[in-house]
């Protein structure tokens, strides 16, 4: 088991090193940094001096190593477009994305599990069928269209909810939170639904099929034979055994929630890192793109690793 864990950790580090290499290559080869940093009036001496001071004369892998060391220390370069350190910009924007992702994940999990149980228990009921059909349509709708649709209905036609932005935020330490003001909470509703809807349907379908599977198991029939109440059987006996795969899938989906936040953030002009990334692509702001790539890789690889290790912890059969 120790060797399995070590192997997984090594794999993760390798993936991060490769991603780091891609990010570094972007820095180094997409657009000439010297060209970008020096103005029109430059001499050969200026170029040489800057090359020297940036370390561009060193061998490739030495440069790569320097880049990694600096990245780990939190120095991610300077944004071409804003002229400020990238790490600073990201630190400013990250709370918005993380809050949105957390609320969406919670929404997806709660409603996914509730609807999943409901559709499994009332298998052929009208409401259950309606929910299943709606979920099918929901999955086929692209995320951005769901966002636009919600904006049209709830912001334009009904004017119940704001159509863009985070509302009022409160600074708590270095973290700007929208959880503490009413307008902040209201502003979270539409983006969270947009972002969480796909994951919700996924969890719902998973819970439903797992529940249906478990309900056929012998121990459930035995519980029925014992004359236990339906409610006890469903929630005490069946649900418990469906939750392990649900937790792993939700964990893995957390990564894609953060990635798909790019789309939601653009639709709702939500000032998070996703919107930052899209703007960086539009204006070819390479340092920001590279930094976002590394940030999101660390999250993805970290989440995958934790989920895998949790799996080993939960399932004794894997411990050999």
């Amino acid at each position: 088991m120790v060797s399995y864990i070590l192997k997984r950790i090594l794999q993760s580090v390798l993936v991060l090193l490769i991603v780091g290499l891609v990010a570094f290559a972007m820095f180094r080869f997409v657009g000439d940094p010297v060209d970008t940093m020096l103005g029109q009036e430059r001499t050969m001496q200026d170029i040489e001096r800057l090359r020297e001071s940036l370390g561009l004369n060193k061998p490739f892998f030495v440069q790569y190593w320097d880049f990694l060391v600096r990245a780990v220390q939190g120095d991610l370069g300077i944004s071409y477009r804003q002229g400020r350190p990238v790490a600073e910009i990201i630190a400013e924007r990250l709370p918005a994305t993380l809050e949105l992702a957390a609320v969406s994940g919670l929404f997806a999990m709660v409603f996914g599990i509730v609807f999943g149980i409901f559709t499994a228990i009332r298998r052929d009921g009208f409401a259950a069928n309606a929910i299943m059909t709606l979920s099918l349509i929901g999955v086929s709708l692209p995320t951005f269209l769901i966002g636009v649709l919600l904006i049209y209905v709830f912001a334009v036609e009904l004017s119940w909810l704001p159509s863009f932005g985070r509302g009022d935020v409160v600074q708590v330490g270095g973290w700007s939170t929208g959880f503490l003001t009413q307008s902040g909470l209201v502003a979270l509703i539409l983006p969270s639904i947009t972002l969480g809807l796909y994951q919700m349907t996924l969890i719902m379908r998973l819970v439903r099929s797992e529940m249906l599977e478990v309900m056929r198991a012998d121990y459930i029939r035995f519980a029925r034979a014992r004359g236990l109440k339906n409610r006890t059987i469903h929630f005490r006996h069946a649900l418990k055994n469906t939750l392990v795969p649900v937790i792993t899938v939700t964990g893995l989906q957390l990564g894609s929630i953060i990635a798909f936040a790019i789309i939601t953030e653009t639709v709702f002009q939500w000032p998070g890192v996703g919107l930052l990334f899209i703007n960086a692509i539009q204006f070819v702001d390479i340092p920001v793109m590279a930094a976002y790539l590394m940030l999101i890789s660390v999250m993805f690889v970290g989440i995958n690793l934790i989920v895998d290790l949790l799996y080993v912890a939960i399932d004794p059969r894997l411990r050999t």
Partner: protein
Amino acid sequence: MTDNSNTVQAERARSRIAMAWDSDVAHSFRRSPVALLSSTVVLLLVLSAIFAPLIAPHDPFNPATLNLMNGFTPPGEANMFTGDSFLLGTDDQGRDVFSTILYGLRISLFVGFAAVALALVIGVTLGLIAGYVGGLTETIIMRVADVQLTFPAILVAMLIFGIAKGITPPEYRDQMAIWVLILAIGLSDWVQFARVVRGATLVERSKEYVQAARLIGRSSFAIMLRHILPNVLSPVLVIATISLALAIIAEATLSFLGVGAPPTEPSLGTLIRIGQGFLFSGEWWILFFPALTLLALALSVNLLGDWLRDALNPRLR
């Protein structure tokens, strides 16, 4: 003599068509209303995209035929200044929405098909090599696939788009945008093909016909191409269809976010992006009709893919 061989060939062709008509897949196609309906929709959309210049009542990209006074004409109503009327209304510049949709559909479909073709060629080639050759080659290919699979395809596509945009000189960026888009979506989507083809190749490799081919001295290349490839094609077809729906949506998403087709060559996604700006002022049709077209297209291709998967895999039913 030539006459005779011609009739033989014609006879053969006829029997082939008859065989195709009688095959399980064709049978299930005729019996499935979903497949019939969705393929009709797809066919209709593809045809109207191909013949867009003939069908479109206006040329939306020729400034000479545009009249700014026609801007914001609601669908089916006469414009209050010029008296012109348009089936699906006009946008802010007086462009006929129906025509822009036809031309947009063209770009969306072109990018979708081209991206899937690229992904298919890359994925099938690497999958065949990984499955047949094995060893270190296989490990490397499948590791790369695993790493890429860690990230959602749309994110990979955005990143490739960003890098490619950085490499192209600024004056060519708009011209190249469509090709960059195809490259980005194609490269983000090859993994599925590679995985499935590798799996199928591993199964086929140990079969007797492959051993026989090897025994008579056919080269590895010929065995992969002529013997194994035809036998692993049916899952590839299913993935290609589902990938097409995903690629069309990916293209629309990227263009909607402003990192795809440029406004000079708008795809459906770009049109929706443009239309979103007018949603607040009540010009709903500029967004609604392109969105509806996109949905009809993506949904029908998706349903077709689902049906194909069931039809080619009778065990799943």
